[in-house]
């Protein structure tokens, strides 16, 4: 459905200039930029052209620039396949990707936004941190020098408009990667993103997928369902702290997966030449509803939760309401996932095929029960230790 609309739009109207398209046109305008290949080349060349004037160093000046040339043309120092760039390295998934990469012996460079408190943990692990911002395309090319593979786990922060990082930034990054001869590009997308064009983030992901597929890069697209790490902050911690847990009554099932497993599988896929230019979907061993997750947490924590159930209909209503006003449009985007929740889907895929393709044993993928159990045993043990300690100090004083 969404696909059809895209192509139709592209055929009828020439795409407006992407980077300058006014905010007011919102979704319609960038949907149109999904045009046939020559448009992309055009875009890429305009970007190349515009950045050459200001920021791109002419090839003869520095050795850095010469390395760039060497990646594109035959002679010169070849880029080592162990040099990778992780975009979005401070995120939930990104940091696991960085760690796995470092542990497997890659030389990891992390693209991180300049910020007052820099990501010291990445440097502690032995990664190189470079400052750049996807929403400022002129900062990107320098970070790609000498890089063989780009792993893109970036997503905009919830508080900022989705478009700047997830669409404009990604397009700029992919175009840069094309221009600089990046040899592999790994992109994380969302499962079923082609089925829900009404959710802005999913539509952007889907369009990025298509953009990447048409770009000519060697790519791997990995669609993900849900992170187990997210459940800790959402359910496990509030239950332990005896605070209220907010859940929906939606029957949607999500196949959560541990980000450490995702990172591990990513690198297996990355090294497998057969998986080039393929779209994989990683899903956990079993799909869970919100209610099931809460029940599981209650059982493991040994205490009941204060569950505040919000009907999906109210979420949908809130979304509709906020959509009416332009100033609440970002809010509406943030509530958009309620559409997926209400559409009563199982957010998962059969996994055996994927495991076989990668040559992984299904037993090695951690289940949600095991994951949460590990969490609760560890945290309860820590609590006990702390209590014992505080008792000791009481006696001591």
């Amino acid at each position, binding site marked *: 459905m969404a696909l059809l609309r895209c192509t139709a739009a592209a055929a009828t109207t020439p795409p407006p200039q992407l980077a300058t398209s006014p905010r007011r046109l919102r979704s319609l305008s960038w949907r149109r930029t999904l045009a046939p290949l020559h448009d992309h080349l055009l875009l890429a060349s305009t970007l190349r052209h515009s950045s050459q004037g200001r920021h791109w160093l002419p090839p003869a000046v520095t050795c850095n620039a010469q390395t760039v040339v060497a990646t594109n043309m035959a002679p010169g120092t070849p880029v*080592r*396949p*162990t040099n990778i760039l992780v975009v979005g390295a401070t*995120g*939930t998934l990104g*940091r696991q990707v960085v*760690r796995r990469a*470092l*542990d*497997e*012996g890659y030389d990891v460079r992390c693209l991180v936004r300049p910020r007052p408190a820099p990501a*010291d943990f990445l440097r*502690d*692990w*032995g990664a190189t941190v470079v400052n750049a911002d996807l929403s400022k395309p002129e900062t990107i090319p320098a970070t790609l020098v000498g890089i063989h593979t780009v792993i893109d786990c970036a*997503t905009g922060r*919830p508080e900022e408009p989705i478009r700047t990082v997830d669409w404009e930034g990604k397009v700029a990054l992919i175009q840069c990667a094309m221009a600089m001869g990046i040899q592999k590009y790994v992109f994380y997308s969302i499962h079923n993103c082609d089925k829900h064009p009404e959710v802005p*983030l*999913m539509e952007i992901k889907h369009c990025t997928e298509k953009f990447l597929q048409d770009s000519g890069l060697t790519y791997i697209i990995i669609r993900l369902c*849900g*992170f187990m*790490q*997210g459940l*800790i*902050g*959402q359910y496990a*911690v509030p239950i*332990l*702290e*005896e*605070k*209220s847990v*907010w*859940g929906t009554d939606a029957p949607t099932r999500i196949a959560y997966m541990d980000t*450490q497993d995702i990172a*591990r599988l990513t*690198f297996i896929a990355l*090294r497998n030449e057969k998986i080039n230019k393929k779209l994989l979907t990683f899903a956990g061993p079993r799909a869970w509803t919100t209610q099931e997750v809460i029940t599981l947490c209650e059982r493991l924590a040994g205490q009941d939760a*204060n569950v*505040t159930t*919000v009907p999906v209909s109210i*979420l949908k209503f*809130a*979304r509709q309401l906020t959509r009416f006003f332009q100033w609440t449009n970002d*809010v509406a985007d*943030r*509530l*958009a*996932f*309620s559409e*997926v929740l209400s559409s009563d889907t199982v957010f998962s895929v059969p996994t055996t095929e994927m495991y076989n393709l990668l040559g992984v044993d299904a037993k*090695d993928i951690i289940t949600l029960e095991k994951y949460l159990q*590990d*969490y609760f045993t*560890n*945290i309860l043990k*820590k609590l006990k230790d*702390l*209590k014992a300690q*505080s008792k000791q100090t009481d006696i001591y004083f």
Partner: protein
Amino acid sequence: MALSSKISAYPSKFLGQSLSFHPNPTTIRRSPTHLLLPPRCDKREVDSTGDDNVESETARSQPSVSLTLDDVNPVGLGRRSRQIFDEVWRKFSGLGQISRTPTDETLETVLVRGPMCEFTIPGAQDTTILVVGATSRIGRIVVRKLMLRGYKVKALVRKADQEVIDLLPRSVSVVIGDVGEPSTLKAAVEGCNKIIYCATARSTITADLYRVDYQGVYNITKAFQDYNNRLAQLRAGKSSKSKLLLAKFKSAESLNGWKVCQGTYFQDVVGTKYDAGMDAKFEFTETGNAVFSGYVFTRGGYVELSKKISLPLGCTLDRYDGLLLSVGGNGRSFVLILEAGPSADTSQSKLYFARMSTKVGFCRVRVPFSSFRPVKPDDPPLDPFLVHTLTIRFEPRRQRPSEGTTGTTQDLRSFKLIMEYIKALPTGQETDFILVSCTGLGIEQNRRDQVLKAKKAGEESLRRSGLGYTIVRPGPLQEEPGGQRALIFDQGNRISQGISCADVADICVKALHDSTARNKSFDVCYEYIAEQGKELYELVAHLPDKANNYLTPALSVLEKNT
């Protein structure tokens, strides 16, 4: 109140719930250790008092009797109401989002550095590891792996250049020193528990090889042993690194309990008629030496000196690795015999023996428990825990004339053994020193002998140092990600393939806490994969999974003390 009117525009259903459940949202969320704290009692109080829960910290700190100025300050009220509103909104909008990244710093303690992280190794924070050659191809990855697992890492570098420092993670403590200069190493080994040595000579010039591959290993093992000994002294023999004194012969009384006896392996009828006879004595001389001396002329005869070992309270020999004897004499070889079994019933004891050679003059002899063999081949291997009697036996069989005293004819049937002390060597479950050596593959032909000679000398000096060691000899190194191909562990210089630097680094890090890696040397390389259609054998080995430990099963079949 002004507050309620302000938010009442919002669906009252959520508002009411949220207010009662989230008394103090912002203060709870921020504190980084909150997750680990037991529920605070003051929080409960705030919970129970219905109206107070909108008030923030100020209200709690003061015993709120009446309204203060702060309570009616519109700015403060506005801020507080906004905080509450934000919290409710955060939760509400969180429901409608696809990916909710935990913004909480508190989760880091468990998920990132804590036990939920697949890399974390228990006890790693208390272990300091010195990496020598931290900027080498293997060293760089070793340092990263150690940092990921939470170890404290010290890196020995020659010069603190900015580009060298940039190569290392930030929280690595950098020590400046040169393995060729023993004086610079004292500071480097200070506070270290284990050492990984992956430095190698940059050239194949003999002086360079000698300096790094041989003398470097020697210097650093020496510095490390000195440091260990200093620790052992500081703790007055209570340290796990100090030896256990079994016997010290410094006075005539110290000879009490030692018995001399003699016997024969078989009855020599003919021999007894001629020059048979034997005699031995153990005495304390005027010069202050305890001397066990005598002669054995009888064929198949032997004399022995034995004593029941009495250990200090709380000590058992299973915590020890072997025996150390400080002896002098005329260079005969002896047989050490240990009797092991339940001490109540000596008839069930089993005998274990090991041969020990001495040289002319004083020397110290180490006899590891692992070199003891049962006298009856069917008996189980020696369990040091059960040892109760130690015997030193002399027999004229298999004696070799000692060197040095050429010219004078020796009667190999007479012996003299001056005893100074007998100690038990402390054991370690784990390796103390990991040395990355090489197999000699991939080195240019004309320099290979020199390189190997230096490496072998370095290995030898490590083995002699008394540290628990692991010597890894990888095939030619390749710069590629690790964990891709099956590895072959072998002893005996038979390997033919390369190996990635990352795999070598992984072996080093895994070997740190692996008891099977202690005191072993092994070669490692990728499994040989024949070209299509040229296979001679079926592929048996499989790709090691990073999650489980492949090292223990691979190493447990290899020979120890190599």
